[in-house]
């Protein structure tokens, strides 16, 4: 049995769905950040897999993967800063308590 592109893509899709579930269904803000990291990882797997199977002699997918990693680092830094700021005000990281968007 040969591992094809589909295997990698399905694996990435599953990882993405797990991350999405974490982002949408967890109460803790930090869990949500972790979910987002999982989703970003799934994206990078896709990029690299496409690169490997469809244009192996170019490394454009890798370059994009590095960019995404940089974005993820920036995202998690700002995200954690936001969580900490909110935590100072509410003494809570429970996303159910953040309901300022209400009417």
């Amino acid at each position, binding site marked *: 049995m040969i591992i094809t592109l589909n295997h990698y893509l399905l*694996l990435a899709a599953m990882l993405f769905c797990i991350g999405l579930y974490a982002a949408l269904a967890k109460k803790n803000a930090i869990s949500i950040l972790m*979910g987002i990291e999982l989703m970003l990882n799934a994206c990078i797997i896709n990029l690299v897999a496409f690169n490997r199977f469809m244009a192996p002699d170019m490394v454009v997918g890798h*370059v994009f993967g590095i960019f995404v990693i940089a974005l993820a680092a920036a995202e998690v830094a700002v995200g954690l800063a936001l969580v900490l700021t909110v935590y100072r005000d509410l003494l809570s990281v429970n996303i159910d308590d953040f309901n300022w968007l209400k009417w």
Partner: protein
Amino acid sequence: MSVSTIVFWIIAAVVLGSAISVVTAQNLVHAALFMVLTFFGVSGLYVLLEADFLAVVQILIYVGAIAVLIVFGVMLTQRKGMEETNVSSSHKWVTGILVTILMVGFAYAVTRTPWQVSDHAAPESTVGLIGELMLTRFVIPFEIVGILLLVAVLGAIILTKGARRLP
């Protein structure tokens, strides 16, 4: 069945199993550690995909920086005990169904699409190629990412410390 196939299945099992554990673990610290494990697994996948440089970067940044940041975040926000710190919301079933449907859609799309696969071999080492691309063709995105990181760092500092007007 070749070795790489076996390795892929093992790594896939590790990645998915640890990712599910990230979601299901009741203790947030455990979840963070499972996430680190996921990152390692993904790094292994990169090795299988012959992306050696990216695998190293994955470990360096994700495991070395982001995971540590997350753990710091956990440490700074959890005052009481760590039990029951990673619970799901009341709408988890709805989310679960939604995510399942999405997964089915992905699977359908992926399997239905006739991918045009190339049979070229991957280059021996990717580092040199990546560096060349980054400083030639992708120099502007590269610079922009640098600025983005700078802004993100400044933003994180200002958000946590608060901005103060100069005298």
